[in-house]
């Protein structure tokens, strides 16, 4: 049963991968600098790493907005968010998992009669606005720097493009890592209080309960990236504004920096030391940031280059997404509670800390989940190794055939 409850989270993870993760490499793939296959593999690997290593930071912010205190509630919430994202992704609109999950948490708060923490909500909404604005400003700045560098150094176009290509891969990997660290809380954050898995020893390192959940979520995201992100990548990369290769790099770099700014406690502490207010640790909407970055470059080049129709559609999706997710959550919770008699949560007493209330929720089926994760990782390791060997052999074969065909051609020419 516990695994069944996790499926909605995994579905949400798949949606996150298909939608939000594709923003990292969307501009690179759209500008044809990086192939989809390469982008998908790099994004998957680094997303999982980011989620497992650094994923726990932003989950606290979401739990402040609404502490879901029943696994049935977590399941319904994640399901509603996932359905919303799936529907939006169907129309190739780059919406955000953060918006969907925030909408769902507010829906849960309404249903259970809990108060929505207006301060946290304010922080999140502010980040939704600040993210794209900072992204646009950074993108313009970086774009000017790259252009000036190109002009002043008189670097050969082919060499410059090869730097850009390498940069896109490195920055994309960094972006995917940051996204995993920043956004995995959206997928698995609502399940953390309900699970208390035993530590998983993998010889080299040990994964705690949250990390195991983040790993599962990361794997679901990777599946989403590999199976369904192509369409969204095309929307991001080509439809809003035709991106040059340097613009593609700037967009990914600006986006990664924004994600980093809103995830790094170290940077926030540094800013506090200088006497400025701290940066809120909020899961940022990567879709809003990337659109902001692309818009920034579009504005710098002249607004005539921007496809305002696509931009308008995205704007509408931004409003629809949290509202639809909240409403869907509310109705699904109603059905879960009244038709299936599943406990979807209750009003949290103001005097008792939410974490105390949730500690008694789940201590069932833990070893099963840990074992499944262990076997899953083992299977993936074997599958990955075989895949890599097959890929290398295939590439070598292609190269040999190409060489042979060239030699034959020139021999016949002579």
């Amino acid at each position, binding site marked *: 049963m516990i695994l069944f409850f996790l499926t909605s989270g995994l579905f949400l993870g798949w949606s996150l991968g298909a939608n939000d993760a594709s923003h990292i490499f969307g501009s690179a793939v759209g*500008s044809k600098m990086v192939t989809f296959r390469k982008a998908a593999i790099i994004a998957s690997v680094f997303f999982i790493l980011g989620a497992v290593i650094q994923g726990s930071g932003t989950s606290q912010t979401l739990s402040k907005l609404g502490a879901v205190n029943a696994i049935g509630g977590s399941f319904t919430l994640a399901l509603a968010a996932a359905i919303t994202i799936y529907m939006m992704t169907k129309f190739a609109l780059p919406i955000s998992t953060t918006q969907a999950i925030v909408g769902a948490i507010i829906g849960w708060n309404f249903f259970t009669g809990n108060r929505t923490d207006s301060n946290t909500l304010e922080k999140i909404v502010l980040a939704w606005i600040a993210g794209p604005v900072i992204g646009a400003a950074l993108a313009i700045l970086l774009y000017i720097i790259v252009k000036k560098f190109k002009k002043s150094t008189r670097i050969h*176009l082919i060499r410059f*493009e*090869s730097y850009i*290509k390498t940069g896109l891969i490195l920055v994309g990997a960094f972006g995917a890592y940051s996204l995993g660290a920043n956004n995995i809380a959206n997928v698995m954050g609502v399940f953390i209080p309900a699970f208390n898995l035993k530590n998983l020893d993998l010889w080299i390192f040990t994964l705690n309960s949250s990390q195991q959940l983040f790993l599962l979520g990361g794997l679901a995201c990777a599946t989403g990236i590999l199976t369904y992100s192509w369409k969204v990548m095309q929307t991001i990369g080509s439809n809003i504004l035709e991106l040059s290769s340097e613009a593609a790099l700037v967009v990914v770099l600006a986006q990664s920096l924004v994600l980093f700014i809103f995830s790094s406690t170290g940077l926030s502490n540094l800013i506090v030391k200088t006497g400025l207010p701290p940066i809120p640790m909020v899961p940022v909407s990567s879709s809003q940031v990337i659109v902001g970055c692309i818009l920034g470059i579009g504005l710098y080049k002249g607004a005539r280059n921007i496809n305002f129709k696509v931009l308008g559609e995205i704007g509408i999706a931004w409003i629809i997404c949290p509202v639809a997710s909240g409403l869907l959550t509310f109705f699904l919770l109603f059905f879960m509670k009244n038709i299936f008699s599943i406990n979807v949560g209750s009003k949290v007493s103001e005097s008792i800390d939410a974490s105390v209330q949730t500690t008694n929720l789940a201590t069932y089926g833990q070893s099963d989940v840990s074992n499944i994760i262990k076997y899953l990782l083992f299977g993936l390791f074997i599958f990955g190794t075989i895949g890599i060997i097959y890929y290398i052999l295939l590439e070598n074969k292609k190269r040999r055939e*190409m060489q042979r065909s060239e030699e034959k051609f020139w021999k016949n020419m002579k």
Partner: protein
Amino acid sequence: MPVFTRTTKNLIIKIDEFFDNIDLGLLVFREGIKAYLDKDMDAFHRHLQKVDNLETNADRLQREIENEMITHSILPQHRSEVSTLIDELDEIIDALKSSLNEINIEMPDIPSSLNKSFISLTETSINAAEELVPAARAYFKAPYTVREKLLKVYYFESETDKISFSTKKIIFQQMDELDLAHKAHLRYIIHHIENVSDLAQKAADLLSGMAIKIVM
């Protein structure tokens, strides 16, 4: 990753080598025509052989450049344009080779009174193509300067047209001693030489558009 492989370096070298071939081809063609007009057939055949080798080498380089750009996914956004540009430049060296071959086969009888006009026509036509090569090189390193370099191509192309026009006028209106077949043959040879500047102009048009796109 592309930065850590030799592909980029090799490709840059090959593109430079290709441009060198075109440059050399133009130089040799000019000398070949001069040798023919001076009735120095040994030198002419030597130059013809040299152009032939340069053309074969340019073809090989063109193929290798295109193959490498596709297999290593280099310049994905500009690949087709760069390939077209290289193709246009290759057409120039093809035209040089075929012109010298036509002259070698047909052995046109060019009256010595027209030598100066033919040399002038060849110089101007070749100048147009020669000015194209630095512009094409600049596309890769300083695209901002491409358009100003191309101005000379257009200038020399128009000068070639003028010289061609006046030479043909002399042949058909002032040289009554030549029969019509002879006149038509000379006109045909003039077209061959003039064709080099026309091809240069065609490539310049393409390059001009490419430069705007990359600068914007």
